[in-house]
C-alpha cells in the first residue's frame, strides 16, 4: 500500500504544480482529491487479491 499511496501523493502534487495559475485546465487540481482517491482506491483493490 505504501507504494500506491506514495504514487497518489505524487499525482496530486504534480497536478497541483502543473495546473497552478492556469484558467480552465484540462486537469482541474481543485477537483482532484476525489479523483486521486478513486484512482488510489482502485489500484489498491487491483493489487488487493491474496491467497487464502
Amino acid at each position, binding site marked *: 500500500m505504501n507504494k500506491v499511496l506514495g504514487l497518489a501523493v505524487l499525482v496530486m502534487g504534480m497536478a497541483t504544480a502543473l495546473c497552478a495559475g492556469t484558467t480552465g485546465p*484540462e486537469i*482541474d487540481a481543485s477537483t482532484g482529491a476525489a479523483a486521486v482517491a478513486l*484512482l488510489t482506491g482502485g*489500484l489498491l483493490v487491483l493489487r488487493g487479491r491474496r491467497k487464502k
Partner: protein
Amino acid sequence: MPLGTRFQPRGLIARILFLSILFATELVVISVLLDSASLARAEGLAGLIGDWGPWMLRGIVGGSAIFATFVWLKHQAALERISIELEQMPVVAWPLLALHALAMAAFAALSSRLFSGSVSGAVAGGENLLALAWLVAGMSAIAFGALAALPLRQWVRLIASGENLWAYALVSIILACIAGNLSRSLWLPASKLTFTLAQWILKPLVAGLIVNPDLPALGTSRFRVILAPECSGLEGAGLILAFGIVWLLLFRREVRFPQALLLIPASVMVLFLLNALRIAALVLIGDAGARQIAAGGFHSQAGWILFNAVAVGFCVTVRNVSWFTQPSFASQPPPAVTVAAMAAPAEHTENPTAVYLMPFLGILAAGMIATAASGGFEWLYPLRLFAAAIALWVFRQRYATLNWKPSWFAVAAGAAVFGVWIALDRLSGRGADAGLPAALAAASPMARTSWIALRAAAAIATVPLAEELAFRGFLMRRFISADFEAVPFQSVGWLAILTSSAAFGLLHGGQRIAGVLAGIILALVVKRRSSMGDAVMAHVVANALLAAYVLMYGQWHLW
C-alpha cells in the same frame, strides 16, 4: 514499522506540524501579496526571479513533500529514533524563531520594493542588488524557521536517514519544474494539434461545423469552444508520463523490460488523443443544448475521468498481459476487475480490500460521473446512492461477519460530531447567504421532493456504511498491517487515527477541518468497543441531524 503503535507523535511529528503550519501560512500570505508577473520585464537576477521564482517555490514545497512522504513510507524506524531524541527538547527554539521573524520582516520590506518596480533602473545594478538581498532574506527566513523547529544535528540525521532519497527528490523536482516551465512553450503547437484532431473527429458528426483557426475556435452556430493553450493535452500527458515511469520503477520486479517501457509512450499518446475527444465531446454536448453541462461539470471532470481510465488501464495491462509481466507474477491468478468477480473470488484467493473499499469507490465514481453530467446543480446525485447500495449488496455476506452491535454511546458521539460540524460552519460564516439551490427551487414539487428524499437516504444509509468501512475499517487498520482485518480496533494508535482522519477530512470539500475532527471522533468510537456498528451508528446520527438541520434551516451549502 506499523503506524500508531509505537511512534510517539510528540517528538518529530509535533515539530514537522509546527513548521508546516508556519511555512504554509507565510506561503499563503506571500502568494497573495506578491505577483511575479511584475518582474516579467526585468533583466538580470530580478528577471530570473520573475521567470523562475514561482517554480523555485513549487520546487521547494514539492521536493520537501516528496522527501517527507518517502522517508515516512520507507524509513520509519530511523524517524522513530530521531523522534525519541527530540522528546527531551523543547518543540520551538524561541531565539531562532525571533530571528526567523526578523528575516521575514526584512523579506516583506524588500518584497514591497522589488515587486512594486520602484527601484530606478538608472542606479547601476540597483535592481539586482535588491533582488540579491531579497533572496538572502528569504533563504535566511527559511533556514531560521527550520532550525527553530529542529536542531541542525537532527536535520542532518533526518536527511541521512533517507539515504539517497534527498538526491532523488531534488533531481525529480528540479526536472519536473524545468519540464513544467519549458512545457509552456509547447502549449501553442500542442493545442494546434489538438485543435486539428478535434476538428477531424467532429467533421463526420456535425453538419455545419464552424472552424476558426485564428482564435482558435471550433463549434456550431449554437455552441462554440475556444481552445486555450492550457487545453493542449500536455497537462494530462505529463501526469500520465510521471505516473507510468514511477509505477514501472516501483513495481520493476513484476514487470518485463524493455517491452513494458512501450506502455509509457502508448499511454501518453492515448491520453493526448482522448483529450482531443474531450474537446469534440464538449462541442457535441453544448450543441445538443446542454451548454451549462458542457462548460460546467463536464469540463472540470472529464480530464480526471480520462486520466484515471488510462492510469488504471496501464496498471491492468502491466499485470494481466503476460508479455509485460514477469512469469513468476503472471502465474498468479489475475486480479479481479469486476465487482461480481471480486464478490465471488477464485477458489484459493480473496480480496478483502475490495470488500471494504468498493462501496466508497462506487460513491466516488458515481460522484465524478454525476458531476460531469451536471451544469451547476448535481441532479444525478442519487447515482451515488445506487452505486454504494449495489456494492454493499454484492458483499453483504462478508459484512455479516463484522461486529455491528451499536451502543447509546455511539448515538451521543454522533450528536457531538454534528455539534462540531455546525460550530465550525458557523465560525466560517459560510452559511449566511445559503438557500435552496436555484435549480432545485425551479424544479417541479415531485422532482424536488424525490431528489431531497434520495439525497437524505444516501446521507443516512449508504454514506455512513461506505465511509466507515473505507476509513475506519480499512485505511486506519491498513496503516498497521497488510492483514488489516486481523488488527483489533483497540490496538490502533494515534498516528493511524490522525492519518486516516486527515484523509477523511481531505475528501470533505469545504468542511475539511470539521471532517478531520469528525474522523478522529468516529475512530475513537470504533476503537472503544471494536464495533463497526458503533462507528456507523455515530455517523448515521451525525448525518441524520445534519440532514434535518439543512432542511429545517435551509443551510443547503452543508449538502
